[in-house]
């Protein structure tokens, strides 16, 4: 039992921190532009594919360096030459634009790389078990994923709260006109933040690609869950996104590990249904079976009872 608990916690941490890397960029961009970037997970996918292509020629580490740069540059260009123009037509136009961009990127990925799964490998350097606990291996690569994610969180947190750039960004989010009057180039700040946000998604793609497999559907699989995190954490809140990411990562991991089901609940209530009952499927539902949809359940609950999210300040 203990081994399942320990490993579920580790698995949950890996997933949660990975989700945070995506959610942090998304929530930053949201607090800045007031718009959810539907194409955010697509940049994550691009990160994985760029890194795959680079790694074929120059190895994994070059991919880890270049792919986020490429993705970030692409993100900045998208902001500068497309999103900024669309911005003039209001939020709905922006929303529709990013929605379309997501489809465009998915098709482009299939066009250039094909529809099959890519054999994107983790580096040989990290191809050893970090430790063996209760006969189960925990791979060094997963440890590396945790290290990178935590590192990025710390750097991001430091830059946003302690550095001069961070203060300007925070000011630009709440008082863009005042910041512009003080002589700062606000559109440039927006572009950089968008670029950094997408680059973060790119990093997530680079390190997740080898473990979660690199295929054209990877953005869709992760995309919706990232929105759930941003909403649960509170739109625009970095701390909230961090807590929500870990919460969802751990929630899913524990739910899968558990063997609880409706039958246990019914036993507790002293109820019993025969196998012929028309709702038999419902009475035999188990927690692992619905684990991947639990975050959406949580989303509904949060929206009902705390619409601003865990740490959101935004009130309509």
């Amino acid at each position, binding site marked *: 039992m203990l081994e399942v608990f320990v490993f579920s916690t580790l698995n949950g941490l890996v997933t949660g921190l990975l989700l945070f890397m995506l959610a942090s960029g998304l929530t930053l961009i949201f607090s800045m532009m007031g718009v959810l970037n539907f194409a955010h997970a697509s940049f994550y996918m691009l990160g994985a594919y760029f890194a795959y292509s680079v790694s074929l020629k120059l190895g994994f580490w070059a991919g880890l360096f270049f792919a986020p740069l490429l993705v970030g540059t692409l993100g900045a260009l998208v902001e500068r030459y497309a999103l900024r123009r669309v911005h003039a037509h209001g939020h709905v136009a922006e929303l529709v634009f990013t929605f379309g961009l997501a489809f465009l990127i998915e098709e482009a990925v299939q*066009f250039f790389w*094909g529809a099959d799964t890519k*054999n994107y490998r983790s580096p040989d350097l990290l191809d050893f078990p970090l430790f063996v606990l209760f006969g189960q291996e925990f791979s060094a690569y997963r440890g590396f994923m945790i290290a990178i994610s935590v590192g990025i969180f710390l750097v991001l947190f430091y830059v946003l709260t302690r550095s001069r750039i961070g203060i300007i960004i925070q000011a630009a989010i709440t008082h863009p006109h005042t910041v512009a009057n003080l002589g700062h180039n606000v559109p440039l700040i927006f572009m950089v933040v968008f670029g950094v946000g997408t680059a973060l998604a790119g990093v997530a793609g680079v390190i997740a690609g080898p473990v979660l*497999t690199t295929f054209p559907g990877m953005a869709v*699989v992760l995309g919706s869950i990232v929105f759930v995190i941003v909403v649960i954490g509170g739109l625009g809140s970095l701390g909230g996104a961090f807590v929500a990411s870990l919460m969802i990562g751990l929630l899913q991991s524990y739910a899968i590990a558990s063997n609880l089901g409706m039958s246990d609940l019914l036993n507790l209530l002293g109820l019993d249904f025969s196998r012929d009952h028309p709702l038999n499927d419902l009475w035999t539902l*188990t927690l692992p079976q619905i684990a*991947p949809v639990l975050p959406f359940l949580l989303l509904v609950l949060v929206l009902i009872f705390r619409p601003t999210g865990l740490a959101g300040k935004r009130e309509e």
Partner: protein
Amino acid sequence: MKRLHCRNTLRFLLTGLVLSLFSTASAQEPVRIAFIDPLSGTFAAIGTSGLKQLQYAADELFNSKGGILGGRMIEIVPLDNKQSPTDTQIQFRRAVSEGLRIIFQGNSSAVANTLNSTISRHNRRNPGQEFLQINYSAVDPILTNEQCSFWHFRFDAHAVMKLNVLTDYIAMSSDIKKIYIIGQDYSFGQVVSDTSIALLREKRPDIEIVGNEFHPIGQVKDFTPYVTKIVSSDADAVITGNFGADMVSLARSIIDSGLDIPIYTFYAAYDGITATLGADGVDKIYLVHNDAGNPIPTEERLAYTRNFKRLNPNNDMTQFRITNALQMLVQAMEASQSTDPYDIALALEDMRFTNMSGEELWMRGEDHQIIQPLHISVHTDQNIVVDADNSGFGLYRDFSVAGDETVVDHSCRMRRPRR
């Protein structure tokens, strides 16, 4: 890659244009066949690969040799359903409005079930405008049992037939005592789980089922939490019906966890899966399927596969049953001298056919289920003549069962149309 793709697309468009210009003018109208499968989205890899194989079979075997029925070409019309039953309905409407009458479909039993009931309803209401469903891959037994239809023909062994062979094979390994079953939470995944448990109880009562897990299809990002459970269950083997990304991720997570046990699968090869598993999967991944794999049984088959590879360097001949299906379909058309689904269906019933691998195929008339030899192959790089994903790794045949030994009873009471 990009330029090649462009040129292919251009050529494809031009061919389409030319065909559409000439089809009305020429007396020799092409025989048009719809291909409804995922060509975008999560499962696009399998769908596009199937399309290429069908196109190749049509071009290589018939169009380049003067066509069928005295000079008519076969034209494949791809319709993308994103593997969703809803989109399938939309694409079926399109097929109706374009006057197509024959549909190839294979991916996902949920889609096949939808298509089956949609076609049955359509055919009942539109006599003379019937559709024929050529199911080359969807293996939910229900399609040739409770839900069997005169208009549906299946060219792959269904899940119970395959599991019969697989459990025979497992029953022979006496060191397997504990088995973990994990699968996608939909009709096919449920069938794999229920049938495996029932058959193993019968063949090897000493085997303990230590896990029976379902997960939502195409939704799981990371299988490690599931693998944690497999490891702690002390399983000696895993059975899974997963396909596509769900299959790769599961196998990768199992291998990454350092677990060294056999994984018995239906679909753990090709479309990037073999390359991704690579050396880590050798002698661990087993597949039950209808293709003979390596060693390639006949020279003809080898040449046919090599030529496909030459034309499509990034694809493999993953579903040879598509070729079987098209050859048998054409034979039925030639025999009845008709492209009408009703005539074709009658000719297909109880057809016996020797395929390119030299295997005897029989389309059982009572339930429209193909009876063919089945094989269990292992993922390896030893003695591989035709590999998968250009990886050097491929499938090596380990165990074969003759067609008549794969026969299982059916409960089909077919409603035959009156004409």
